[in-house]
């Protein structure tokens, strides 16, 4: 039975990806819709970022002295000035390790 549900899950997932690419005629989108669509990354990605930084595994807010908040702050500063993906990820991870080590 699991194979059947995996297949359904796969089809559902494929449908979410395929849907608009195939059924939307871009010419039919108003300029306003196109403008709003440019906000998609800014509207979606924070929903993945915020819980991963500010919530623990139980879904409760972490305290201010949590290493990942501080490491995230460092990554924002590094990213703000460098705009470099590798710098953001490495500075964030390394400071996370350092904060975890020293704040323990």
């Amino acid at each position, binding site marked *: 039975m*699991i194979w059947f549900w995996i297949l359904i899950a796969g089809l559902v997932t*494929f449908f979410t990806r395929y849907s608009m690419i*195939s059924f939307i005629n871009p010419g039919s989108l108003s300029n306003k819709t196109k403008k709003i669509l440019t906000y998609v990354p800014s509207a979606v990605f924070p929903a*993945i970022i915020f819980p991963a930084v500010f919530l623990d595994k139980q879904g409760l807010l972490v305290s201010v002295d949590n290493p990942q908040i501080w490491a995230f702050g460092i990554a924002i500063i590094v990213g703000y000035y460098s705009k470099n993906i590798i710098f953001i*990820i490495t500075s964030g991870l390394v400071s996370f390790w350092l904060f975890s080590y020293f704040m323990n």
Partner: protein
Amino acid sequence: MKKITVFKKGFMDVIPLTIPVIPFGIIYGVVGVELGLSPLVTFAMSFIIFAGSSQIAFVQLYTAGASPLVMISSVLAINSRHFLYSAVLAQYLNKLNLYWKILLSYLMTDQAFSVSLSYFKKNQKKTFSHYHMLGSGFTLWLLWQISTLSGIVLGNVIPEALGLEFAIPLTFLSLIIAELKKYDHLLIIIISGAISLVTYNFPLKVYIILSAFVGLVAAFILTTKYKEISE
């Protein structure tokens, strides 16, 4: 530009973003087998579903004995952000034939969407620009399959204490870092992020699409207001 050059550009652009994909794939492989799925089923999910968070949710719910309806609606809720990506990419991929649309849809991920969208915006007129998404999407796909397999085969190779899953929010931060300097985007980011924290414990993991929806409503209000001011 040659097809292979564009393909390579897609590969190069997405590579930095694959850093957390590898530990994430390994974690998924480990979790799948530890929760009692067969190695074949665990691997097949990476191939058939190919969407990390929803795969982990599926495994957790399935092994906890949740009803199929709950499993499938969770997968749908977690992956519903793809609807939005799909709507954005439609503007650039609409002219492709059916096979290309199916292939690039299958390969659509957060990371491929993000890097290839930037490329499409800058290279709208180029004939082979879709090869960029083939490059970014395929690279991610291949690494996801390999890392899932490694997780299944090697077991728990990455110590949990390393906290490598923290690379996930860092990756997504790097995808919107340029937007932090734009006040309108910054506002949407804060709104969406705040909603996600408040609604995180809602059932079926609806928080992602719920936050995105509220964020886009805010964007709608913002663009309407802005238009009124500029007129």
